[in-house]
């Protein structure tokens, strides 16, 4: 296989970098401040898309890969699951860092043990556990990690609906219910699009890492058969 990244991936990455720059410009220079929360509300434009990246992209991708792996035991499905887990950790970390910073101004506290916050923390920790299990649990690690990813998918549904059923400190789904002013909505949906493209590029790149690892493993096996390695 070719060790050079595909030109289309490079082009899409360049486009997503340009969109990310444009998104930051729109957030700080083109979108008005919110009346009650003021400047700190600017965190919203990256906080929510990264939360959606966790709930609607990373975790479902890990779960789809897990179902495929459990059904077929094909390594390619496991690579998809692994990529989903890593993306979920990245997006989840973004949410868990930016949320408390916003909460410090909005609520006067970095963290409250609200249902939405706590279940999101559990979700991200379960993704981290997936990664640890896959790396260190030995035989059957991939199956165990796949099972945990499916549990995480159930938890992600709980995280999404928790603000409706347990009215706590965390606000409700502002963007989904069309409660944004048009100039804020335009910036927000542009950020969502940017995050989707970025997530797509990261997945492609991460899947290439899996392919390279697989090719490397095959070569190591050939070397062992040829008596060049132990």
């Amino acid at each position, binding site marked *: 296989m070719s*060790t*050079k*990244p595909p030109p289309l991936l490079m082009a899409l990455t360049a486009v997503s970098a340009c969109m990310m720059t444009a998104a*930051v410009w729109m957030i700080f220079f083109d979108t008005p401040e919110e009346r009650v929360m*003021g*400047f*700190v509300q*600017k*965190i919203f434009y*990256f*906080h929510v898309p*990264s939360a959606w990246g966790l709930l609607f992209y990373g975790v479902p991708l890990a779960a789809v890969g897990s179902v495929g792996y459990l059904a077929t035991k094909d390594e390619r499905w496991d690579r998809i699951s692994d990529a989903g887990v*890593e993306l979920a950790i*990245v997006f989840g*970390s*973004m949410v868990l*860092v*930016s949320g408390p*910073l*916003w909460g*410090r*101004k*909005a*609520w*006067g*506290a970095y963290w*409250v043990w*609200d249902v939405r916050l706590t279940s999101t923390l559990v979700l991200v920790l379960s993704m981290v556990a997936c990664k640890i299990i896959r790396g260190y649990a030995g035989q059957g690690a991939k199956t165990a990690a796949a099972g945990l990813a499916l549990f995480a998918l159930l938890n992600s549904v709980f995280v999404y609906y928790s603000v409706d059923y*347990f*009215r*706590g*400190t965390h606000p409700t789904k502002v963007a989904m219910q069309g409660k944004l002013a048009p100039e804020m909505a335009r910036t927000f949906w542009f950020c969502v699009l940017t995050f989707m493209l*970025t997530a797509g590029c*990261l997945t492609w*790149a*991460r899947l*290439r*890492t899996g392919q*390279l*690892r697989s*090719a*490397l493993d095959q*070569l*190591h096996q*050939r*070397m062992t058969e*040829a008596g*060049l390695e132990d």
Partner: protein
Amino acid sequence: MPPLPWLLLALALLAAPLSLPARAFAEGATTSSTAPPNPAAPEKKPLPPGFEPVKGGEARAAQVDANALVVAAYAAFFLLLFGFVLHVVRTQARMAAELKELSSKLDRLGKG
């Protein structure tokens, strides 16, 4: 056979706790029926439906500098994103170099 005074004392001790709730109920009934409600007394605050709001949160929040929080949040976003991209790029570069080395070794072996 126990003497009668001891039996009476034992009965009185057993009956004493039973009479307490009845007495309290009777007292409550008399006070509620006779004493008018005191308007100066502080009203009992109803409990929130499930969560306690953060105490003193608004006062603390007013003192916090929003600029620093927003800068920190966006710095974290980009650090995490570029950190992940850098990790993927470095891993792929290392693997590509190893693949090249192993392939050339195997080629030499095949020719030899």
